[in-house]
Structures are given as C-alpha cells and as structure tokens.
C-alpha cells in the first residue's frame, strides 16, 4: 500500500480518483455518511475498472450491529464491490463507544467475506482510545487524526498500537496546524506557496509507526503536490516551516491536552475558557462565546485573574494562559 493514500471526502470529481489510481496510489478511503452517500457512489464509479489493485475502505457511524451491517451492505452496493478491505467504526472518541455489538458486526462481516480487516476511526480522545484499541484482539486497523500539532501522548499511543501489530492510518494530516488559517488570510496563500501543507504531510510520513495516510484531496493539483511527499522525504527545510508555524500558533492555540487541569488556584477549567475565547477571537462569534461563558459554573464565570498575584497555570505548549483567560473575562463577564 502506498504511504500516501487518498481521502475522498471532499473530492470534486471522480476523474481525480481515477487518475490517482493510475498514478500509483493504492489506498482510497470514503464513508457511508459522506455527502449523504453520494461520495461512495462517486468513488465506486471512478474505481470500477481498477478494484483488484486497490485497498478500499469505508465507515459506518451506526450505533447498533443491525444498522451497521445494513450500512455495510449499502456501502458495498454503492461502491460496486463485493468486499471492503477495511471497514471502520466511524468517529469513536472513547473505549465505551467501541461496543461489543459493533465489534460483533465487524466479525460477522469478516466471516461473510464482506470485509478483510476491522478498523476504528478516531479524531479525538486518542491518548485513551488508541491504547485500548491496541490491546483489542478484534481490531486490526486504527485510523487516527494525526499531525504535527498534536501532543506527544498521541504519538506514543500510535507507537504502542504499531508495536501491537495494528495497522495505523493517519488522517487530518495537514488540517490541524492550519485550521486557524482561512483562505482570506494572506498566510493561507503563503502556506501553500512555501510548501507548508506538503511539509505537514511529510511530517506524518516520516513516522515509522504510520502505515499510510489519507489526506483529503480536492483536485488534480493537490494530488500532484501530495505525490511529491512520497518522493521527497521530511528534512530540515520542512522542520523549519513547521516550527515557524507552531511558534505562530502556540500563544493562541490550545491543543486541549488537559495538562493544565487543576493548575488554576481558582479552579478554572482553563482549556474550556480558551476554547470559548476562540469563538470570539478566532471566528468572530462573540454571542456564541458569551453564551458558552455564561454556561460555566457561577464560581468560574465570576472568577477574575486579577484576584491572583501571579498565574499558576503553565501551558507546556506556550499558550499565554493568564493573558488569554483575562481577555475572556474582559469580553464575556457581565
């Protein structure tokens, strides 16, 4: 399987998928829920003459065995194939969501020859969920959000899963570090021009515990750019780009790692307050920020950073906590 796969979720046209297969990409990922099912149909039509050389995966969001198996049959029909190579339980965030019922659905599908491997996809909560999946005997593949901005425990969890013999697939490989940069922002064009997105993909690929990746690809230009990542390894130039990006976002970007829990002497849920502030500062949704702030416990909403002689919260990633929390209080508190 190629280390750069193809995330089909927002692909604009099936011809891009077909061309990717001709250019040598061998792994394609979709989901039952993408575009109300239209995405699976597009992928199926694009790959119908190439199925034998392709690793194909899809996902089900369903919460029961019966519904998940119905989803699988629909996926097979829409994709025009008699089996999936990997079938993921879609978007799980904690071990309790990976139920015995859903695992049984995957085992039934495996015995029926409808899937080759059983997988679980996860976007958050990886530090807890991935070690659980690593030990789960019936989980073969883990599809995880993974990029250069995530905290070290995620890398450690992925290493643990790989050591346990699980296949690990990286997704959201570029978005994390650049999510805050909108197309209207001059930095957006610069990131493209200076190779920021490609550097982020290479960063994931140079992790030996990652089997393959599924960056979302919209068009042929993005496909051509991503293919370069396979030929050009991660090096000092890419490290410099990503370091600069991290420095830029670090004072503002809370990674919700939770390591500040309990550090505030007034008991503030710091990461919640920082997230609430992002609604106003990062996205111009002041009303939403104020609404969420007012939902905090009264003692938290009423707390003031000015009451402390100095801040006891230290962010391991350099977020200026005292300054940011004080700003939230200034903006939202009555």
């Amino acid at each position, binding site marked *: 399987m190629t280390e750069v796969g193809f995330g089909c*979720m927002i692909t*604009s046209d099936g011809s891009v998928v077909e061309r990717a297969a001709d250019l040598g990409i061998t792994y394609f990922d979709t*989901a039952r829920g993408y575009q*109300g099912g*239209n995405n699976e149909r597009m992928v199926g039509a694009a790959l119908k003459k190439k199925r034998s050389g392709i690793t194909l995966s899809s996902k089900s*969001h369903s919460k029961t065995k019966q519904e998940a198996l119905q989803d699988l049959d629909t996926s097979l029909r829409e994709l025009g194939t008699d089996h999936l190579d990997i079938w993921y339980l879609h*978007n799980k965030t904690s071990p309790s969501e990976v139920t015995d019922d859903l695992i049984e659905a995957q085992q039934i599908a495996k015995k029926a020859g409808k899937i080759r491997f059983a997988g679980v996809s996860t976007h958050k909560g990886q530090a807890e969920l991935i070690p659980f999946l690593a030990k789960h005997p019936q989980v073969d593949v883990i599809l995880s959000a993974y990029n250069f901005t995530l905290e070290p425990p995620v890398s450690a969890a992925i290493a643990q899963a790989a050591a346990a013999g699980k296949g690990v697939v990286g997704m959201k490989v570029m978005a994390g570090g650049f999510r805050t940069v909108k197309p209207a922002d001059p930095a957006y064009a610069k990131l493209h021009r200076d190779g920021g997105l490609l550097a982020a993909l290479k960063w994931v690929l140079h992790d030996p515990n990652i089997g393959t990746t599924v960056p979302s690809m919209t*068009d*042929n230009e993005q496909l051509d750019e991503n293919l370069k990542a396979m030929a050009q390894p991660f090096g000092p130039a890419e490290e410099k780009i990503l370091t600069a990006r991290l420095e830029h976002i670090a004072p503002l970007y809370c990674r919700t790692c939770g390591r500040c829990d309990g550090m505030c002497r007034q008991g503030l849920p710091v990461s919640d307050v920082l997230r609430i502030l992002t609604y106003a500062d990062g996205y111009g949704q002041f009303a939403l920020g104020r609404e969420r702030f007012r939902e905090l416990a009264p003692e938290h909403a009423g707390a003031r950073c000015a009451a402390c002689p100095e801040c006891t919260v230290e962010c391991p990633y350099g977020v200026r906590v005292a300054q940011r929390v004080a700003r939230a209080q200034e903006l939202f508190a009555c």
Partner: protein
Amino acid sequence: MLKLICGLVLSVAAAGVLAAAEEAPVPACNLVPGWSQAGPDRTYVADNLFEYMDGNAEGYLIYGFLKMQGVTCKKGDVTFVVDLSDFGDADLAYGMFTSNVDGRQPTQKIGMNGQIVPRRAFFAKGRYFLEIAANPEGDYTAALKEWTGALEKLIPGSTDLPPALAWFPTGQRQSLRLVPESVLGLRVLKRGYAAQYDYGKAFVVLEATPQSAGTVMEQLRKRFGGTTPAAIADEAFQATDQYLGRLCVFRKGRYIGGYAISQEGMDPVPLSKALAEKVVKTD
C-alpha cells in the same frame, strides 16, 4: 460576509444580501405538538463543528458553513435530531443540498428544494440548510413531513431555485450539484454547477469578469494541449483528456461552460452549443 464575488448567479446572491438581516430562530421542539426537547440546544461554528460531527465536518466547511443551531426532540422512544445550518448565501446552502440529495429518490418542494426519506429529511431555504435525522430505525416519513412543513415556515429566505439549474438538460441526468471548488477536478475552474449524465458531464462556472474568464480559457487550453477551435459563444475549443474524455469548453461573457463526454457516439460540440444558448449573460 456574503460571498457575492464567487456566487454563480447574481440574482440569487442579491437575495442572499436581503436575507442577511433575517436570522432564523433556533428550532424549537414544541413546533410540532407532542414533541419535547431532550438535552440542551446546540450551537457550532466552523472552528468547532468537528466537535459535533468529526469525520463529516469538512463536507460542511467546503460549502462555506458559518453556524449550526440544533436541538434534539423526543416523542416516546423516537428522537429527531434537528440541525439548522447557516451557509451565508442561498447559492451555497443550495449547494449543500445538492451535495446530500440522492438523485435516485424524488425531491419535494420544501423551501428551494428538499428530500424526505424514511429516516432523514433535509431542505435548503435562503441561506439555510435544515436537516433532521430520526432514531431508532423505522419509517418516519409522515412525521418528517409535518416537521419540515413547520420548519419551512420558520426559516426566512427565498424559495426560488438558482436560475443556473434550468440551463442543464434533464434527460439521462444522474445528478446536478454545486461544486464548491475545482470543477471537473481542475483548480482553475473555481466554483460552479456540474451535472453528471449517463454519457458524461456538463458544467458552468462563473468568473469575476469576461477578462478573467478569458484568462482561464487560456489556462485550460494549455492544460489540455492540442485543442481545436469551436464556433460557440465568445470563444470555444475542443480537446481530449484521458480522464474527462472528449471536451468542448466555451466562454460566454463571464461564464465558462461545456461538456466532457465519455460515451462513444455523443458529440460535445452541439451539446455545448445548446448549453451556451441557455446561459444568461449577467455582465
């Protein structure tokens, strides 16, 4: 901020401006008798939509998603998850609808357009996209009709379809959708409508000016190479592409359109000529 420059149809974009002042209220469960709210209201913006629907958020963001407000409503053991999303203008909200609609199932005239299937209903009206998901398994068509009827009255905005939809022939058409970026998989074709037919694809893209559209035509000629001129509208060419098939691309004012034909025996030139004749110039 309304995306007027990129909007495909100016009249629809203008309607979006007028609708900007009209905020839709948060859906309420007592809108339909017998239902009550389960849990708190939900509000999400582009930066945190992934917290609600990680794994599917990008499908919303690509259409310019701004904000979602939702509630979960309950009647007995049945729950309806009701979510109302603001896409900033009617063109994009309709685009979100086209992304989700199952072309093999009938649509209903709810707002601009809607679709109700046993466990799901959704429609676009003005700059809003409304969706309801029903649980557990079952056929909730009747209740979904009642809900969409009530919600349609609640949501402000135009019920007029984007005029561009009428330009595309309906025979052998599988789908017609707004592609939010990279029409035909080509980044130079920024945003437009694309129809999938049994025999190939048709598309129409709107550029900012006739001059910029002319520049895009030049880029396309270079991209495909070996093009031959065709006598359609302001300028046109034919080309062949390994993946798109036999192409005919025309420019009419700010519009770029054409056909990509994959089936033998079909000629993209007369099809493109007919399409160009329907395209209404707005410059």
